[in-house]
């Protein structure tokens, strides 16, 4: 279970600002989001939003990341630094 | 490319005359960057630093002889010279880092013919004369007349600047040189201003020379600023008039280092400040400086 928050861009594809998803990890969560919002996945690829922030931490390779009932999830782009 | 290290002026001149693509150098502080920057490589590098006369700094009678290849640090380390020409000394001391000052020379600074050369305005206000060795012997040319344009001099290919002659200043005379750079060191002058003043016994200016660098293709003497100073006691009005005249005399360009507007504005400011510094130097030495 996790609460997924959508950014302004993403809302155009979801129509909602957030959704509660019952998923054990990010891969399962993304699968369910794709079913719920068919155009979202292409948008995420398009915007390179391949990272996920879970409870504030941005994780660049998140697919197998486990989720808890209280996880707050944002779909974001990976960062780079100097 | 061939390296040559002549020990006499004649030898150096003969080498230069033998090869149209040969160049002379002292510190190479301009030559090396120019070669890296794509300027054609010379066929011969004639090193002038092994010729004694070009390396010496000496006072003979009332005339200072400054070797054209002597490093700037030879001037800044010479307390007697610095006392006579604090402005020339500070100009030489502004050319680059300590590393550069141990190589850069007044001859190179002049013959590189950059409009922004620091030492040239300082030499010009002191009526310095360049001694030039050529086919017909030596000739003496006011420093102001050596550079004819950016990168251009009045020297023939086989001529070499040997030294600079500066007459010791008259009593109650001193000079100053100021430049504007964005950092505190290592930059090329955006504007440079040299001023020499003589004060009379009453503290009024009896003689003044003003020269600006980096504000025109060559160094600019500013007679109007000099006229504004002469007869004055360096009051605000005459200093402002000199500053305005200096700004007016500028013929600058916009480039990566500064704008036309900026250079004009700052030329006036530096002229005023350099005049103040020169006057302070005369007052603090209580007229004891100078030759007589």
């Amino acid at each position, binding site marked *: 279970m996790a609460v997924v928050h959508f950014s302004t861009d993403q809302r155009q594809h979801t129509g909602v600002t957030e959704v509660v998803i019952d998923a054990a990890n990010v891969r399962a969560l993304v699968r369910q989001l794709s079913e719920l919002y068919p155009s979202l996945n292409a948008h995420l690829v398009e915007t390179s939003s391949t990272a996920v922030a879970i409870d504030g931490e941005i994780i660049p390779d998140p697919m197998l990341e486990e989720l808890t009932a209280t996880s707050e999830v944002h779909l974001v782009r990976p960062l780079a630094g100097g | 490319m061939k*390296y040559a290290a002549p020990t006499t002026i004649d030898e150096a001149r003969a080498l230069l005359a033998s090869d149209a693509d040969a160049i002379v150098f002292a510190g190479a502080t301009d030559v090396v*960057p120019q070669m*890296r920057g794509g300027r054609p490589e010379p066929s011969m590098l004639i090193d002038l630093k092994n010729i004694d006369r070009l390396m010496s700094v000496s006072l003979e009678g009332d005339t200072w002889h400054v070797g054209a290849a002597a490093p700037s640090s030879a001037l800044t380390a010479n307390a007697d010279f610095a006392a006579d020409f604090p402005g020339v000394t500070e100009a030489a001391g502004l050319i680059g880092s300590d*590393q550069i000052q141990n190589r850069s020379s007044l001859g190179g600074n002049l013959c590189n013919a950059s409009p922004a050369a620091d030492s040239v305005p300082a030499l010009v206000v002191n009526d310095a004369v360049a001694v030039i060795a050529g086919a017909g012997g030596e000739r003496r040319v006011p420093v102001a007349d050596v550079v004819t344009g950016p990168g251009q001099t009045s020297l023939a290919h086989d001529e070499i600047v040997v030294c600079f002659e500066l007459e010791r200043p008259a009593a109650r005379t001193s000079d100053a040189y100021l430049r504007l750079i964005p950092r505190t060191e*290592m930059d090329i002058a955006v504007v440079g201003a040299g001023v020499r003043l003589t004060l009379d016994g009453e503290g009024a200016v009896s003689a003044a020379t003003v020269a600006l660098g980096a504000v025109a293709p060559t160094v600019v003497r500013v007679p109007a600023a000099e006229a504004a100073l002469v007869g004055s006691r360096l009051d605000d009005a005459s200093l402002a008039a000199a500053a305005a005249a200096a700004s007016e005399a500028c013929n600058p360009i916009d480039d990566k280092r500064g704008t036309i507007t900026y250079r004009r504005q700052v030329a006036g400011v530096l002229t005023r400040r350099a005049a103040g510094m020169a006057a302070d130097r005369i007052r603090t030495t209580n007229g004891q400086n100078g030759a007589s």
Partner: protein
Amino acid sequence: MSRTHVTCEVNGDAVDFLTEDGESLLNALRDELGLIGAKEGCGTGDCGACSIIMNGRLQCSCLIFAPEAGGAAITTCEGLASADELHPLQQCFLEGAALQCGICTPGFLIAAKALLDENPDPTETEVRYALAGNLCRCTGYDKIVRSVLEAAVQIRTPA
């Protein structure tokens, strides 16, 4: 290009090498003598990473044509330490964390030595101006300046 056989003294040793006439002394030191302490950061005398002391004067070796070194006495960073002891400047740089990436360090040490040889008791301002020809992009100069001032104290008052 012509070549010149150069004989000189480097860090107290008599050495000789063959160099192309237009080559820099920096490249000769590095390639012919294997003295890699001096670095090329710019090749135009603007960064000081190639600083050496030649005939008692601090200079950028990238601006010196190698044949100019004939008969000269040269000190590079490699010549600062003795067999069993670092130069106080080196020790103070280590203890004062005055280096990060270290590429500019040999040049700073040489420039600082040249300063302290002439002025054993410099002010902070004098240190800053004496080192103005050496660029460091890592440290902001703070710890370098402090370390030079500390070394000056140690050299003036040996333990």
